[in-house]
Structure formats: structure tokens, C-alpha cells
């Protein structure tokens, strides 16, 4: 889920932060969560939905009402289809979401929240989650196959440290892959369990950046994989994505921790690569916890 600070949400709605806080008191919408520092964090979906509703509304109240309905409809429709084990209806719900939103927003505002809702209501041991996770993985794979070919000189290797498609992080990782591919990057996703022969994959793909995503596989196994990548490709930037809450405050100065939102993580990835390619950062020789030296890559790409 993508979050906005009060000033960002107010700018998106073209109102002052005080007005936004007044709406929160009067209408209870958009309803922010709180950061660890007690700052308001608004979900992008709510704010964007309200922005759209305001443009066609007669009052703030009616716009809030419409935004609430609009948000709930697609998510509820998809959630309902998935818990009913109806994949065709789930496909139709996503088609409906895509009629109103970009693919990225549909994934972030409808698909992923629906999956989170199913995990919350049914737990990850349920048949409902098994069906939903499988459907989501399939849907995201299909969307990725339909993405245009890479247009950027950006190559990313993603080390998948999630358990399997039933891992609640897996859809977010697939979403990150999808968004990166749609942004024009060349993406190679490999399980961190597969170390043997990694050099061949690296030689073919020649990555600019490595992402380690998911929190199921332990640090030792991840470190072995990362070391093998480093041997094959040399030093390059490394980022971690949804590696668990303990990694949010990683002490390393070399490893970038990506935001949990797939779209924000994708943007951050491209920034990292472009910064690295532009040589605007000085080389950092400190090793990351996963053994990959960070800093500008010396090999020609």
C-alpha cells in the first residue's frame, strides 16, 4: 500500500493540510494511519479516489460518499469472487478495476488490498487464501507477459526469498517485478535457493542491481546466494524488499531498503540504478549484510 504524508495528500487534493485535517474530523475520510512517529499517513487509493470524486461532486460529503463506495466496490467484488473460488468473476472484477485505474493502481488499490483482506479474514492456512494466492500469481504473471519489451538499459536480478506463492509477500514481489518490467527494465527473477550455476545466469543478464525480496528464507541461505552473485558479477548496488520488519532499520549504509509499496519500490529501484549509472554517488566499499559490495559498478554495461 502506498502512503502519503499530510502535505502530499493535501497537495494531491489541492487543499491545505488544515482542510484535510478538518475533513478527517468531520467526515472521517480520508482516514489516516499513524506512522511510528505519530504522523498521519494517508493511503494513496483513498486520496486519489476522493480527488476524482471531488471533481464531479456537489459537496464534500457527497464526494466522500462516492469515494467510499468506489473504493469498496472493486475491492469487495474481487474479495467476494476469490473467497467464492470463482476465478472468472475475479478476472472480471480486475477488468472492472482496470476500467477506472491504471494497471499499477488496480494492482495496488484493488488486487493487493483484496489479498490482504483475505489473509486477515481467513489466515494463510485457509483454502480461500490458497485459491486467492494462486489466482493472483497467475494474474500477475499474465500481466507481466503482456508487458512491452524492455526499453531502458536497466537490468535487475531479483533474488526471491519468499516461501512459495502462498507466502503473503509473494504477490507484492510479483507486483514489483510487473511494475519494473512495465517501467522498461529487464528483470530476472531467481529463487535464492538456487545457487549452482548462478554465474551463467548473471553472465547472460549482466545486472545493474540486485534485489533480495521476501523474508522466508534465512539470512545464511540468502548470503550464500548473494555471495555467488557477487563473485559472478562484481560489486553492484543491492536493495532489499519486504525482507521483514527487522530489516527496516538495517544498520548497513550500503543496502537500500525499499518501501513496502510495490510502486514506490519500483520507482526507488530505478532511482538507484540511474544514480549508480550517472556516477553521482561515490563508491562505497562497505559490504552489505549479504556480501555484495555496494557502489558504482566497474564493469561496462
Amino acid at each position, binding site marked *: 500500500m502506498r502512503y502519503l504524508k499530510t502535505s502530499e495528500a493535501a497537495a494531491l*487534493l*489541492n*487543499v*491545505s493540510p*488544515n*482542510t484535510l485535517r*478538518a*475533513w478527517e474530523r*468531520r*467526515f472521517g475520510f480520508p482516514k489516516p494511519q499513524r506512522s511510528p512517529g505519530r504522523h498521519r499517513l494517508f493511503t494513496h487509493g483513498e486520496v486519489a479516489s476522493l*480527488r476524482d470524486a*471531488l*471533481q*464531479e*461532486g*456537489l*459537496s*464534500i*460529503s*457527497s*464526494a466522500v*460518499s462516492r469515494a467510499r463506495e468506489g473504493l469498496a466496490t472493486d475491492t469487495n467484488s474481487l474479495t467476494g469472487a476469490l473467497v467464492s473460488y470463482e476465478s472468472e468473476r475475479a478476472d472480471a472484477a480486475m477488468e472492472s478495476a482496470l476500467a477506472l485505474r491504471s494497471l499499477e493502481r488496480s494492482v495496488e488499490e484493488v488486487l493487493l488490498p483484496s489479498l490482504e483482506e483475505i489473509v486477515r479474514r481467513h489466515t494463510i492456512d485457509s483454502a480461500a487464501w490458497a485459491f486467492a494466492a494462486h489466482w493472483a500469481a497467475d494474474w500477475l504473471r499474465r500481466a507481466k507477459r503482456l508487458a512491452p519489451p524492455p526499453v531502458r538499459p536497466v537490468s535487475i536480478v531479483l533474488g526471491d526469498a519468499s516461501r512459495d506463492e502462498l507466502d503473503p509477500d509473494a504477490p507484492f514481489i510479483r507486483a514489483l517485478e510487473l511494475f519494473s518490467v512495465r517501467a522498461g527494465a529487464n528483470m530476472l527473477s531467481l529463487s535464492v535457493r538456487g545457487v549452482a550455476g548462478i554465474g551463467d545466469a548473471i553472465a547472460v543478464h549482466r545486472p545493474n542491481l540486485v534485489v533480495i525480496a521476501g523474508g522466508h528464507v534465512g539470512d545464511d541461505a540468502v548470503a550464500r546466494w548473494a555471495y555467488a552473485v557477487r563473485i559472478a558479477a562484481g560489486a553492484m548496488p543491492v536493495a532489499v524488499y519486504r525482507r521483514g520488519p527487522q530489516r527496516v532499520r538495517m544498520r548497513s549504509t550500503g543496502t537500500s531498503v525499499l518501501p513496502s509499496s510495490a510502486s514506490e519500490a519500483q520507482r526507488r529501484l530505478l532511482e538507484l540504478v540511474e544514480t549508480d549509472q550517472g556516477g553521482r554517488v561515490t563508491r562505497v566499499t562497505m559490504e552489505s549484510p549479504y556480501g555484495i559490495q555496494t557502489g558504482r559498478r566497474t564493469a561496462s554495461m
Partner: protein
Amino acid sequence: MTNSGRTGSRGALALVPRSVEAARPTIWFCGHCGKRPSAAGPPASNARVCDSCGLGLLLETVADGAPERGGAFLVLDRSLSVCAVSHGAETLLATTETDAVNHHVTELLVPADSESQSGSNLAAAVSSATRGGEEPLSVFVRPANLFGVRMRARIVQCGPPQAALLTFDNPGG
């Protein structure tokens, strides 16, 4: 042949489309506090929130039908659902906008002129306004479930999107 010199009176023969001939001055106002924005001209579509109270959207209506600042008025859509309730109307009708919005207007107001066999005047006037009727219409209404009260209200079109503006005349009087 020219239309010059005919301002203020409608000619028997209309040589130009009626909408142009009948163009009337319009103004913008806040759908909650009634304040008119300081900036002249229509606001941008993404900048319609009142910069004074922050609780209403700017709406356009004909100049002679616009409410006063702090006035009591409602905005209704063509299905006669309440879309906006001004601060003054909240006080007058003892409700809040958040409670009233999306409810049928008859949950707040009912016609009070049944003796004149025009019990549907309210609905007809709102429908006319939401269809673009240009002339202000007057109706007598009373709050639902409250007898012995009779209030005169003017109904004109407003928007965007097209809707009806029901303004209470001298609610305190």
C-alpha cells in the same frame, strides 16, 4: 437586423438561439458557507474546495438566485437526493450534512402548500431546475414531521454537475 436595444425584454421573434439570448449573469458560491470566492471567473475543476470554510465545493448559479453568505440552502440532484446542506440549513433543519446526504429530500422537507393542490410542486420545481430550467421557482415547504411551520424556498439550477439549489427565504423571519 440586430438585437441591439432589446436587452431586458424578450422579442417575439428569436433570431439567435434562446440559450444565448437568455444568458444571465452567474456567480460562484460555496455549497456550505455560501461565500463567494474572491477570484473572478470559474475555478479550476481541481480547485473547487472553498478556501474560506474548506467544507464545501464551489458551485455556479444565476446571480439573482445565489444564496447569501451563511444562508440556509440545500443542493439536490435530479433524483431528489440531498447532495449538500449549508451550515445555515443544518441549523434550520436540525441536521448535519453528513447525515442528510444521499437521503431523499422528503426525509428533510415536505411540501407545505397542499391546500393549493400543488403537492408535487417541490418535486416538479427540483426536476425543472435539474433539467436546466432557468427561471427561479418558489415553493412552500416545511420540515418533515414538523407542523405549523411554513417556509418559502426558491429553487434554481446550479452546478456543476447540474443540480437544483433550494434556498430558504428569510428562515428566521
